[in-house]
């Protein structure tokens, strides 16, 4: 009888552990942003650029607990690299990727300038499961342009907004983030030459070309 009591309590304990794990899992949502970003249909600017994608950008994870909702962990690092590399490869005649500015010094003769994008801000909103509601995402990057000697030319904040109808929460969040990132890419690829500091820099290279 005593052995039976021990066996029952072990079984109950195991069931309790499993149930607790399930409950804890349902209180958090994890999204790994996945997408294929298309090449923008724009004319290439005849400049060769170095591109710094540092660890902060490549490993970017956003964690937030929304009121009355689950905690969200959103991994955007991989999508950042996919979007930005595809974008800049289509915008310039040549792109060379670096992880740190110090690594560029040996390649100065081969590039005209250095782009250093930074994910400055990420915000999102998920409705509480009502009809006719959308998941919304706001994302802002800071595109920094440096001369090859390290002198800052300009900083250009570029933001994007995306929304997606909420049928499945995680899938809608992924879609909204991708839409917002595509909007950022659209702005960068079409408005790069229109920024005064960037336009002056391009003209200084005597390689300016209209889109």
């Amino acid at each position, binding site marked *: 009888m005593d052995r039976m009591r021990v066996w029952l309590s072990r079984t109950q304990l195991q069931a309790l552990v499993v149930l607790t794990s399930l409950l804890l899992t349902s209180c958090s949502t994890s999204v790994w942003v996945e997408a294929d970003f*298309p*090449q*923008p*249909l*724009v*004319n290439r600017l005849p400049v060769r650029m170095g591109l710094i994608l540092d660890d902060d950008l490549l490993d970017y994870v956003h964690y937030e607990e929304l009121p009355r909702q689950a905690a969200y962990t959103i991994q955007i690092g991989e999508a950042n690299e996919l979007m930005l590399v595809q974008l800049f490869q289509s915008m310039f005649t040549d792109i060379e990727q670096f992880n740190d500015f110090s690594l560029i010094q040996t390649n100065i003769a081969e590039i005209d300038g250095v782009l250093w994008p930074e994910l400055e801000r990420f915000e999102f909103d998920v409705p509480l499961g009502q*009809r*006719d509601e*959308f998941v919304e995402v706001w994302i802002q990057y800071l595109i920094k342009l440096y001369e090859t000697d390290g002198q800052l030319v300009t900083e250009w904040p570029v933001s994007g907004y995306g*929304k997606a*109808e909420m049928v499945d929460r995680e899938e809608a969040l992924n879609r909204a983030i991708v*839409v917002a990132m*595509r*909007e950022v*890419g*659209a*702005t960068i*690829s*079409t408005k790069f030459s229109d920024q005064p500091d960037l336009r002056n820099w391009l003209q200084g290279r005597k390689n300016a070309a209209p889109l």
Partner: protein
Amino acid sequence: MQHLYKQKCYPTIKSRISQIFLLAPIFLITLGGCGITSRIEPYKQSDVVIGEGESVVVLARKHHATHETEQRIVDCISDGLASGNDGLSVHNNIEFEDKLYPWFEPSMAPITTVELSELLERENVLNQVLSTGVRFVIWLDGSTTRVASGGGMTCAAGIGGAGCLGLGWWEDDSIYDATVWDIYELSSTGTIYADVKGRSVMPALVIPIPLIARPQLAACRGLTQQLRQFLTSSEYGNGPNTSSE
């Protein structure tokens, strides 16, 4: 024995018939409360029709802050236009947007045919559009929203069983307009407007019985039928078309 059978069975049969007569009016009233009312107004400005080797693409308007056209109705209309023996050549909308990226993103897409004309002045964009074979762009704008709901239902479960009692209802309104652009002529060839209302009810007498009206599906079917005629018939007429089911 026969007399005893009549004594036992006749009251039971009588009570069943009474129950049927009692429930039938409730059921008929419930059925009468649900249904779909649709109104479709086509307007065609020219007699141009789709030719051999030409394609269409259905795109959703996404620049509004308050709503966005649902992808499922875009897919529904695209699939509907492509299906059947007289199916049209329909280009996948996501692939079209990817090929023309970034020029058909929500913030960049041309809103008027004037903007379309300016966009196609870019040689690389024009060449890409021509390579897709698309001649007609169908812009779908609108959404399906719940405009009213009411009623209530109570469900309970116990040792002896479970069940629900009550009546719930809701009304959805699907309002869309499909504007057709001719890329070759750089002009709008016309618009088809659809307004479909559907009321759904769910009576519950022990078991909930959902009687779902699907106005979005009805809007899809109506628009698909009208768009097919719009694109293939040079004598396509104008004026409202109303129906109720």
